[in-house]
C-alpha cells in the first residue's frame, strides 16, 4: 500500500554508500491507476501489505453502467464500473473468462484473456482470394471494438484477436 493505493513492485534496487545508510529504491505500479512511481525507503522498513488477489472470473453481462462477473466455483458475483474495466471493455464477450484483480474483495483491474475469438459484425465486403497482399480494412466486432483485418475477412466470420495489441491474429473455423 502506497499513498492508500495497492501497488505491485516492479523493481527493487539496493542502494548503499559504503559507510552509510542502506536504502531500497523501489519502482511500483499503482494497481488502481496503472501509473508507475518510484520511492526510496530505508532498508528494513516495512509498508502495509495490500490484500490483493488475482482471480479468474466469468464475464456475465453489462447492465448499461456496470459490468458483472462471476466466480465459476463459488458462484459469487462481482460488479465493476467503467473506471475499473477501462479498455478491457472492448474485448469482453459474455461467458468468456478474464482475470480480475480484487482488493479487499472489490475489483480494481480487469484484464481480458490474451486471445479472444469475436464475430465480425460489420465490415466492407471481402475480397476473396486476397490472402497475400497484406492490405487491411477496418472491421467492427460484436463487442463494438474496431480493428484492422485483412481484406478477405467477411461479416459474420469469427476471428482471433490479441487483446494486448488489439491486432487481428487469424480466422477461426467454428
Amino acid at each position: 500500500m502506497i499513498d492508500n493505493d495497492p501497488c505491485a513492485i516492479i523493481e527493487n534496487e539496493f542502494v548503499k554508500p559504503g559507510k552509510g545508510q542502506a536504502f531500497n529504491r523501489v519502482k511500483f505500479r499503482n494497481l488502481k491507476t496503472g501509473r508507475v512511481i518510484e520511492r526510496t525507503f530505508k532498508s528494513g522498513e516495512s509498508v502495509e501489505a495490500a490484500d490483493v488477489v488475482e482471480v479468474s472470473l466469468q464475464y456475465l453481462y453489462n447492465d448499461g453502467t456496470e459490468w458483472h462477473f462471476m466466480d465459476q466455483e463459488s458462484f459469487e458475483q462481482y460488479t465493476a464500473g467503467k473506471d475499473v474495466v477501462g479498455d478491457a471493455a472492448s474485448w469482453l464477450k459474455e461467458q468468456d473468462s478474464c482475470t480480475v484483480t480484487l482488493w479487499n474483495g472489490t475489483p480494481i483491474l480487469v484484464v481480458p484473456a490474451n486471445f479472444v475469438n469475436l464475430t465480425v459484425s460489420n465490415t466492407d465486403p471481402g475480397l476473396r482470394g486476397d490472402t497475400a497482399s497484406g492490405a487491411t480494412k477496418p472491421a467492427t466486432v460484436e463487442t463494438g471494438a474496431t480493428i484492422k483485418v485483412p481484406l478477405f475477412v467477411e461479416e459474420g466470420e469469427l476471428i482471433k484477436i490479441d487483446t494486448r495489441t488489439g491486432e487481428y491474429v487469424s480466422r477461426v473455423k467454428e
Partner: protein
Amino acid sequence: MNAIRTSNREAQLDCDWRPSASFEALRLRARGLALIRAFFAERDVLEVETPAMARSAASDVHIASLSTICHAGGGAAGQFYLQTSPEFAMKRLLAAGSGPIYQVCRAFRDAESGRLHNPEFTLLEWYRPGFDHHGLMDELDTLMNRVLGCAGTTRRLTYRDAFAAYGGLDPFEASTDALLTRAEDAGLVLAADCPAERDMLLDFLFSQGVQAAFGDGRVYVYDFPASQAALARVRASQPPVAERFELFLNGIEIANGYHELADAHEQRQRFAADGVARKRLGLAQMPVDERLLAALAHGLPDCAGVAVGLDRLFMIAAGESSIQAMMAFPITRA
C-alpha cells in the same frame, strides 16, 4: 504448487552450477589483479595478508559483520567475526614499522546484496606512510590510469562543492528540515516513527542525487562532514571536516580513503560513540579491537589509506552493469 516449486528449483540448479561471469570477464579480472600487483611491486609497496576473521569487529552502525564460531588453539569455542575490511590488522602492521603495505582480500558485509553489492567481495587496500589524503588520491589516480587503460577525465571537489552543484544545498549549513524536504521531493519515504537524522538524509541525497549527477569519468570527493569521519582524522577548520575521500567512477562509488586517525584516545571515543548509537538502534555491540588501540597508543605513522572495491572497478573496466557479471559465483550461486 509444491510440484511446480520443485521443478523450478531443479531448472534453476540446472544452470546455477555455472559461473555468472563469462570467461572473458574472469580473464579481465585476472589481468587486473596482475596489473595491480605489478604497480605496487614497482613502488616497493609490500603485499601482506592478515586474518580474515578476528575476535573484534568494525563498530560502524551501517556495517553488519558476519560471525562464526572457532575453537581456537584447542581452547573453548569463541565467536570470531569475518572482516568487513582489513583496516585494523593493517594498521597494526604499520604501527609495528612495516612501511607502505597493500593487500588484496575478501571482505564480508552482511545484508548487502544487489547489482553493486555481494555479501562477500574483493577489496584492495593500501597504506602510505607520509601521505595525506591528497597524496593518496594522486597515487590512486595513477593506478586507475593503469587499470582502466586510459587517462580519463578526472575531477576533484570537496563534499560541500559536490553537494552545492546538485541543487544548491550546503550540506554543512542547510537545516535538517531543508534536507528532509529535499529528500522527500526526491522520493524518500520515512516511516512515521523514523527520526529524520541528518547523516541519513545526507546519505540519501548524496547517493541518489549528487552521485547520479556526476556522469561519466572519475570524480574524487574529499573533506567530508566530521560526523562521517569513520576512521579519518578531523581537521579543525570552520566547519571541521573529515580528511576522507571517495572515488566515483561513472557515478559509482569505487574507493574510500582517509588521512588516518592516529590518536588512540580519539579512536576509543569513536568506538564508544558507535557503541552508544548501536544500542539506540537495537544493534549488537561489537567487541572493541584493543590490539588496534594498543598499536595506536604505541604510534601509528602519519599515513593515508584507501580501500578499492575491485569487483566494481573490474565491472566498469569491462563495461558491465553488475558485479555479478565479474564474479565466478556470487552469493546466489555460492
